[in-house]
């Protein structure tokens, strides 16, 4: 356990030190990677996870591991959460949360635009377990209120949402959720704790894909759930340990190493994104640019209130997106045409609206479709602005666009 109290310290100090006390035996300053799957225990150690209590000795790495624990402490310090649980991927974290909180007969209200893999899970896997699902545009609080039912147990939002960068007012939705006796979970992957701390705004759970900004180097998958000890201790015993989607100690270590530079990286991601967004906005071939840091973002006021950092994600529309996507894939030299985001490298990917609406976002109402079309048109480029020199990113875009 961490002996130092990090609560009063700055973000960058927490990012470096939280969870990483010098090794008690060797006094190693940098954390070790503890790969052992099992630990030598006392003869009276319990064999069931039910006997696991908070200060139990290490037993088996799926239950808990010193390296993974260090990452969890660091994440909790950054989100100002009581506790955190790390998973093998962001989807691993989401699955553990949804299947812990919901049972047959319960109702889930979820954003109608989320990371596509989650939307697809909400289309099929979740309803197949007899859990009701209503998908709404969560940027509209009235739509959420209208969707609430007596059996609503969970409201699940992303802000900014992937891929539209549409925002949801966390404090306001917290009020709606708690009034209805439901919990609020916020996927804060695009914002990171440097921008937004959803738990301080009232949310019950925060989800991260650690693969993105937190890890930051495009080389380690991971996910996390953060929240209160009362809520997460049973989750750890049930869906974390039993479903088994735990993170590898090696990935936990790589992600911890990534987090040490998170605050300074986010500052540059934002700085570069502001420059690139402004450049795109004045380009004649660009139809629309969406970036929470631009005054043109329809929710810029909310962004200013809710995000201390506008992060590094931009989406934009071009004339003839399909054709331009092919040109980008061939001609871009620094920016990689690839999925994922939040890396040190700039990454771009085209999302064709017709394809996505058919495979993933099967909107129920004309209003939902209208909001999608307003943000995305016939398709959008999702652009993760890296840490390169902004001038080089712009020059690369320019030579591919002109």
């Amino acid at each position, binding site marked *: 356990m961490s002996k*130092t109290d990090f609560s009063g310290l700055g973000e960058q100090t927490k990012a470096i030190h939280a969870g990483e006390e010098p090794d008690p035996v060797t006094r190693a300053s940098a954390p070790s990677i503890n790969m052992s799957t099992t630990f030598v225990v006392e003869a009276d150690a319990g064999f069931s996870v039910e006997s696991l209590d908070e200060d139990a000795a290490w037993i088996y790495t799926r239950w808990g591991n010193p390296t993974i624990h260090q990452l969890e402490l660091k994440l909790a310090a950054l989100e100002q959460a009581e506790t955190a649980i790390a998973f093998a991927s962001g989807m691993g974290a989401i699955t553990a949360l949804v299947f812990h909180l919901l049972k047959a007969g319960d109702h889930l209200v979820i954003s109608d635009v989320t990371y596509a893999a989650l939307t697809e899970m909400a289309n099929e896997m979740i309803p197949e377990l007899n859990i009701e699902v209503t998908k709404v545009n969560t940027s509209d609080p009235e739509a959420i209120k209208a969707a609430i039912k007596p059996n609503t147990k969970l409201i699940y939002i992303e802000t900014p949402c992937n891929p539209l960068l549409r925002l949801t007012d966390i404090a306001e939705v917290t009020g709606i959720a708690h009034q209805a006796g439901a919990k609020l979970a916020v996927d804060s992957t695009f914002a990171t704790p440097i921008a937004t701390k959803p738990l301080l705004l009232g949310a019950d759970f925060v989800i991260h894909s650690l693969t993105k900004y937190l890890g930051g180097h495009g080389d380690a998958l991971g996910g996390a759930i953060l929240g209160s000890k009362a809520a997460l201790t049973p989750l750890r015993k049930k869906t974390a340990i039993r479903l088994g989607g735990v993170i590898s100690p090696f990935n936990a270590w790589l992600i911890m190493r990534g987090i040490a530079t998170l605050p300074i990286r986010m500052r540059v991601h934002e700085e570069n994104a502001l420059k690139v967004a402004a450049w795109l906005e004045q380009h004649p071939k660009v139809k629309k640019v969406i970036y929470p840091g631009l005054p043109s973002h329809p929710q810029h006021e909310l962004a200013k209130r809710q995000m201390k950092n506008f992060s590094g994600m931009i989406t934009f529309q071009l004339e003839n997106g399909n054709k331009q996507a092919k040109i980008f894939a061939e001609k871009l*030299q620094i920016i990689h045409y690839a999925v994922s985001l939040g890396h040190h490298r700039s990454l771009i990917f085209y999302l064709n609206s017709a394809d996505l609406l058919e495979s993933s976002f099967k909107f129920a109402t004309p209003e939902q479709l209208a909001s999608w079309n307003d943000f995305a048109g016939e398709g959008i480029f999702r652009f993760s602005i890296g840490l390169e020199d902004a001038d080089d*990113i712009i020059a690369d875009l320019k030579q591919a666009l002109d």
Partner: protein
Amino acid sequence: MSLNRETFGFATKAIHAGEEPDFRDGATGDVVVPIHLSTTFARKKVTEPTGGYEYTRSLNPTRKALEEKLAALENANYGLAFSSGLAAESTVLLSLLNPGDHIVAFDDLYGGTKRLFNQVFSNFGFEISYVDATDTSLVENAIKPNTKLVWIESPSNPLLKLSDIKAISQITHKRGVVLVVDNTFLSPYFQKPLDLGADVVIHSSTKYIGGHSDVLGGAVLVNDLAYYERIQYHQNAVGAVLSPFDSYLTLRGVKTLAVRLEKHQQNALHIAEYLSVHSKVSKVIYPGLESHPQHELAKAQTTGFGGVLSFEIKGTIDNAKQFLEKLNVFALAESLGGVESLIELPSLMTHASVAKEVRDQIGITDTLVRLSVGIEDIEDLISDIEQALA
């Protein structure tokens, strides 16, 4: 239109150089270089090593990615990676010197380098003279007919003395001597010695280049093909090479070198200014302060002042020890250049092997403290120092 990779900014090079995705048939297009752990490489034809790879000691794809990235950052034609800074130094000495040769070295070198010169290479008939290289004329006067190398660190460790790299290189070039510059303290982000006329740049990549205090390494950067071939021959023959895994961690560290170094410097300058007016501090040494005797040279030959500073505490060695042991955020540990702040007492730690009279003569007093300022929030670092000095 193809972008000119030579003119890419430092941050772009730090991310992309050496790590171009492989789009050939059968390749994966991975955007991060894989950790190639294979020690040996298969070939289809007896006489043709596949892609130039035979055995990881001679060349390994992950190490090569790092070597190319470091070369791009130093504006060097060639880079070589070693298992530690001292391994890089030993290999350079073995490559460029013969028994009977003479080295002129800065008298304020890293203790480990002095130990290598005095205890190891002196046994093989190399001759070493130490001079105060802050005075270029002393370097020039020490050069003899058998002088092969001039070896400097700028800024030096721990006194942060500067040598005028350009002026010294003009002398060494005229006299046919190789100029070696250890650039560990500033990294290529703040100083590019090859551009200033040096022939060989050395790094302990354990420090700023790796940046996270979790991987040892050394590097050598050169422009001249003949030097490169000699050093590469010895890299393979001596075998003190960087492992693929450590190459990978170092590569990963380099990607944030620019953003880290900006913050290191900003914090260091702030602390230097804070300490300069503190009643319990008698002296602060930081090239970024106007009070530094070589501040103008620092401005001329570097683009920044780095993250290391030294200062003297008023009183005795016991006052210094009390201060160090009271710190919470600063870890009392040797090494430097990591994201976390480290602090040490050279007289009892890094430079304890240097005789007291020599320490006194060059200025490493008993209460001289060296700080490697990390990238934490400055308020937390200042409050830690404040409570420990109180």
